[in-house]
């Protein structure tokens, strides 16, 4: 017995491919995130030591630091309790203030920190494309003494010739 599946339309194929790609990316990002030691390291590297050394919590290297040992113990206790990442972070923010997080959150105005660079990238990219189109459509500069610029097939011929001769 053979089973035949209906053939997917091109649009469906593209959608399936995109979904598979998204799923793979998700797996890439989130695999291995549940291991407690990994979580301690990951969350600990998302926090700052509040002693004034301006270092990531797990990189603070002061013996006798008034803050980092206690903070590490609190983090370990939260993870042992089974708190989620966001609950751990909330607890730290409530206790030490928003500067305890090593990077802005993705909520409220803090989102602007992440959006702006990518917005600038998109706008910049669009601007460059517009500039390129404008430059491409610009009239060719005039050549003195009534000479006409080489164009079209003739130009391509010279180009191929130059390519062959320079072997590049």
């Amino acid at each position, binding site marked *: 017995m053979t089973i035949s599946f209906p053939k997917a339309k091109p649009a469906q194929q593209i959608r399936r491919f995109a979904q598979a790609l998204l799923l793979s990316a998700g*797996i*890439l*990002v989130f*695999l*291995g995130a549940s291991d407690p030691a990994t979580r301690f390291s990951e969350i600990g*590297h*998302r926090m*700052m030591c509040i002693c004034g*050394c*301006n*270092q*990531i919590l797990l*990189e*603070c*290297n*002061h*013996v*006798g630091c008034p803050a980092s040992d206690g903070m590490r113990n609190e983090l370990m206790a939260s993870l042992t309790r089974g708190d989620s990442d966001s609950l751990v972070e909330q607890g730290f923010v409530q206790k030490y*203030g*928003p*500067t*305890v*997080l*090593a*990077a*802005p*959150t993705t909520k*409220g*105005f*803090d989102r602007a*920190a*992440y959006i*702006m*660079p*990518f917005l*600038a*990238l998109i706008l*910049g*990219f669009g*601007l*460059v494309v517009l*500039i*390129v189109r404008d*430059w*491409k459509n*610009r*009239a*060719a*500069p005039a050549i003195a003494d009534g000479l006409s610029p080489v164009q079209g097939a003739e130009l391509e011929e010279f*180009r191929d*010739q130059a*390519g*062959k*001769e*320079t*072997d*590049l």
Partner: protein
Amino acid sequence: MAVLGSFALIVALGLSVYSFVVGMIALAFQNSASQPGSPSFRRDSASEGNGLAAFLRRGSERLGETARRAGVATFAAVLLASVVLVICAFRDDFSIAYIFHHSNRDLPGPYKFAVLWSGQEGSLLFWSLLLATYGFVLRLRYKTDPRLFAYASVVLAGVQIFFLLLLNFAAHPFALMQGNLPADGNGLNPLLQYPEMVIHPPMLYLGYVGFTVPFAFALGALIMKYPGEKWINITRRWTMVTWAFLTCGVFLGAHWAYSVLGWGGYWGWDPVENASLMPWLTGTAFLHSVMMQEKRGMLKMWNMWLVFATFWLAILGTFLTRSGIISSVHAFAQSSIGDWFAWFLVITLVVFVFFFFKNKEHLRSEHKLESLVSRESSFLFNNLLFVLLCFTVLWGTWFPKISELVQGNKVTVGAPFYNRVAIPVALLLLILTAVGPLLAWRKTSLESLKRNFMWPTIGAIAVAIFLMITPESWGSAFGLKPWKDISYFYSLMAIVLSVLVTLTVASEFYRGGRVISKHTGQGMFASMVQLTHRNTRRYGGYIVHFGVVVVIIGFAGAAFNQDKEQEMGYGDKMTIGPYTLICRSYTDDDAPNYASEWAVLDVYKGGKQIGTMTPVRRFYKASQQTSTMPDIRSGLNEDLYIVFEGLNQDNGHPILKAHLNALVMWIWMGVWIMLGGTVLALVPNAPAPMRVPAPARLGQAPAPVATGD
């Protein structure tokens, strides 16, 4: 001595003001004399060089010459002030407040010399000295193009006035102590008592200050509507040398942080570090886009803005650190002079914007773009990404302040933010670095792009597969599983793209060398050397690209770092990666400048002793501060980095932290390659030895050797 130093600074200010004001008057007279519609020009034409106009023109030329000489003399005066300050440091003259705060009797000689740039007032004097030195060289070389150099000289004098005003009225390095003279000074900040600190600030300042020179030429060329692109050629070497200094300064800072701060890293995204990175990014963009202006007469307006932005960002960085507006671990330089810098930033912006809009018609592009697949468009995207990276760093640096203004509370913007935002953009830039050199000016056929790109791409994919299938036990980047963590994914991408860039660079050398080899019969290596010598700028640039990818591979290693902290008594063991450390001893020591505690550790790898390491912690007596001196055992694969963190107060055992930092040595090697490439690009081209006779028919013409950037 303090009186002599103060006098030299006042004289320097007077000379700078003279150079600026009289230089401007002379240029104004020369301009009015050369305007076709001006009365003086008409009179001049009528009397063929005699009479009032000729007298005025000769007079203005003489005035201009006095302004130039005043600029030269400014250098002598600032140099005198700097020498006086250094002598005062060596003579332990604690009557001068600056010497008292930054030196002490037992400070070793090299650090006494480095006192010149170890604090606010001294570093401003040093900045002024470097600016005066650049100005001195520029004014001596004025015959290259007297008029353009005169404009540049006036702009430099304007900037110099600002620094000398600061030194004379806001941050006087020769201010005297009040009351009884102290027996000894406070000493130099312990973090600065490290050999690299003697050269890191000068390099960084040479870079910061050096970008004033291209800016001065650019503004001068804009004001005088300088015809053609000669000013670009004149400033090219200045810009490259300055860029090399800034590169050196930035990475020396990173190496200093790695070797001294003891947290195991080299870059913390601190505002002061960011301040040095921003002008480097725009300066690098300028070095690329300037080629568009030279070769194709395009991007003239953009280049003006890039030069200005680079200069402006260097000043902005100083404003950030001195004003205290953004909190930084480099808070040693905070003071009230931030307002001065803010006003200076506003004034320079207004002046530049005024002249830009006044003369922007002069900056129209001369050529059109023929194809999207061309060197020109690759430079456009390259510039977009560099400027975007700069914007990202600027945005991240200012965001805590913006957040405070908008939502009333500060936030921290640290490494996790930059890793998330800047790494994807940097990877895009790496792709462009691979593709860009393969694109020709005007237009590249997709066929040739495919042909040139195929083997490097196959090579890069092969490396990716190799890195993924090798066992993890080989260390650092081997056995890389990109699906385990996003940082591994980024590392793999960075390494693979670096390999791609390396292979495209190698293929450029190979193909060029093969053409020369075919024509001259020389061996491939000799042909490649000849090829490089014929176009040092192009091939030096490729070597710089290679250096950059070596650095990137070093950065990619950060994903594999490990660390471990442990208290270690006699005979205690610590294992990290393939290394086992056994504490043989711990002891203390006393020197005139500091007391130290240190541990002696035997290092084993694969059961065999490979060395002994001695991490140290020092207590500096004068400043009453402690500082760690990590012991680092560097290798191509990884660095074993041991920090003496302190002593357990209960049992006196040392507490040690070991870091296993992957591929860090690649960063320092890459910087040397980048600098080597830059030096090579500064070497003049060798004349092409081949003379090609005019062909009878185009189809039979002998193959020329490709040149051009």
